[in-house]
C-alpha cells in the first residue's frame, strides 16, 4: 500500500463529513431530550418498569455524543458506531411506521419522518459514500510513524 502523508488539519473542511457530524449532533441532542422525557414519565405513571428504557436512552445518548466527537476527528470507529446506531434507529422507526399505517392508516408525524427516517437515511447514505469512507480511512503504520 502506498502511504500518503496526511498533514495535520489547520482548518475543518466544510465537507459532507461535517454535515454528518451536525446531523448526528442533532440526534444526540434529541436523545438528551428523550432521556429527560423518559425520566419525567417515570414519575407520571410509568413506574420503575420504565427505568431500563431510560437508562438505555442515556447510554445511547452518551455513545452518540462520543460518535459526534469521533466523526469530527474522522475516526473509523465513529463511522462504524454511527452506522450501527442509525441503522438500529431506522429499524425501530420502520416498525413504528408499520404500526401507524396498520392502526391509523396514516404515516408518522412530520417531525418523526424528519428525525427518525430521513435523518438516519441521510447519515447512512453519506457515510457509505466512497469519498466520505476514504476520509475515515485508518492511517497506515507509515503514516502513524510520521
Amino acid at each position, binding site marked *: 500500500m502506498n502511504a500518503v502523508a496526511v498533514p495535520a488539519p489547520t482548518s475543518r473542511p466544510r465537507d459532507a463529513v461535517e454535515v454528518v457530524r451536525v446531523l448526528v449532533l442533532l440526534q444526540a*441532542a434529541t436523545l*438528551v431530550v428523550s*432521556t*429527560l422525557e423518559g425520566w419525567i414519565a417515570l414519575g407520571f405513571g410509568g413506574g420503575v418498569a420504565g427505568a431500563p428504557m431510560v437508562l438505555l*436512552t442515556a447510554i445511547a445518548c452518551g455513545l452518540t455524543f462520543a460518535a459526534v466527537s469521533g466523526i469530527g476527528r474522522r475516526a473509523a470507529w465513529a463511522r462504524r458506531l454511527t452506522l450501527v446506531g442509525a441503522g438500529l434507529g431506522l429499524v425501530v422507526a420502520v416498525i413504528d411506521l408499520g*404500526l401507524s399505517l396498520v392502526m391509523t392508516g396514516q404515516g408518522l*408525524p*412530520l417531525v*418523526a419522518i424528519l*428525525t427518525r427516517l430521513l435523518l438516519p437515511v441521510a447519515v447512512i447514505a453519506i457515510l457509505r459514500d466512497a469519498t466520505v469512507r476514504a476520509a475515515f480511512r485508518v492511517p497506515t503504520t507509515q503514516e502513524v510513524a510520521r
Partner: protein
Amino acid sequence: MNLPLFHGGSVTIAEASVGSPLYDIAPEHVGAIVAVLLMPVAAWYVRLGASRGSRRAQTLLAGYDRLPTADRIAAWLIAVSAVVHLALIGHGPAATKALFLADAIALAWVARRLVLGRPWRLPAVVVLTGSVAAWWAAAIGGEPPDQVAIATKLVEIVAITLAIAPRTPGRLKGLASTSATVALVFVTALAGWIGSFAAAAEGAEPGQGHHGGAAVAPGTLLTAHPGRDATPEERAAADQLVADTRRAIAKYANPAVAAADGYDVAGLAGLGFHAGNPLYEHDGRILDPERPETLVYADTREGPVLLGAMFIMPKAHLPGPAVGGPLTPWHAHEQICIGLLPPSLTGLVSPLGGCPVASIAVPLTPEMIHVWTVPGAPQVFGDLDEAWLKEYLATARG
C-alpha cells in the same frame, strides 16, 4: 352508527375524535409544506434562467456551485425556513403577518449572502436564533405548536449548528458549539410541551383535566361532543351505568378479591393506580359493569381506596357506546411510548418525534371511559379532579 350492547339494545356512538395539535399539521400550515416541496422546481428555474443567459441566475448558480457541501446544505436549510415563513404570511393577525414577512426577507437575504460568498455566519446566527426564540415565546405564550412549526425550528437549528461549527479544531470551541445546539433543541422541545399543555389548560374548568381546554392535551384523543344536552333517556342510562358499576365493583374494595378475579394489583401505588384484567379485555363484552376491564385505586396510608372502574373497547377504532350521550364521553390515547424491556408506559411521543430507546410509538389505543364510584366524586365520568381527590382522601379517610 349503532352498536349493540352486551345486555341487549343498541346505542349511538360518536363518529369523530379530536387529538392534540402537537402531532398534527394545522390546516393553515399545509401551504408551507407545498411551498417547500416546490423548491426544487424553483432551483430548476434558476438553472434554466442561467442557461438562457440571465446574469442574476448565472451569478447565483456560480456562487452555489463554488460552495462546499456543508455551506450548500446551510443555504438550502435557510431557504426552506424563508419559504415556510413566506407561505405563512396569509394567516394570523397583522402583526404576525408582518413578523413572518420580515423573517422571510431576512432569511432570504442571509441565504443570498451565503450563496454569493459574502460573510454570512453572524447574520445567519442572529436571524435564525431570533426566529427560533420568537417561536419559543409564542409557544410558551399558549399558541399550540404543530408539526410544521417544530419541523421548521429543527431545520433552523441545524442551519445554526452549521453556521457556528468551529472552523479550526479546538476542544473549547467544539464544546461551546455542541452545548449551544443541545440547548436550542432542549428549549424547543420544552416550548413544544409547554405550548401544548398551556393550550389544553386554557379555558378548562377545575377538574375537567384533558376534557376541558381550548385544545386537547398531548396523548389524548377525545370523541367529538355532540353539541347538545343529554336527553332524559340518556341521563337515566348514565345513572344506571354508575349505579350498576358501583354495586358490581364494591367487592373489589379489597384488592385481594380483585386479584383473585384476575386484576393485576401488583405494585399498587399512587393516586390513580390502574389495575387491568387481561381476562376481561377480550371477553366480547362491552361496557359490562360486572366485568370492567380495569379498576382504579388510590394508595393511602390507611390502605388502598377503590375509586372506580375504567371500561375499554376491545380494539382501536371501535367507538365506545355513548349510553349517556354527551354525559359519557369516551377517550383514547394517541402517540404513546411503550417500552419493551419490560412492557411499560415510557411516556408520550416527544415533540421531536421520538420515544426512549427500546420503546415503540403506539399511534392509537382503544377507546376507554372512567366511571368514578367513590362517594361524592364531582365527576362520575371523564377525569376525576385531583384536588378534590386529595382532599377526600385526607378528610373522609381520616
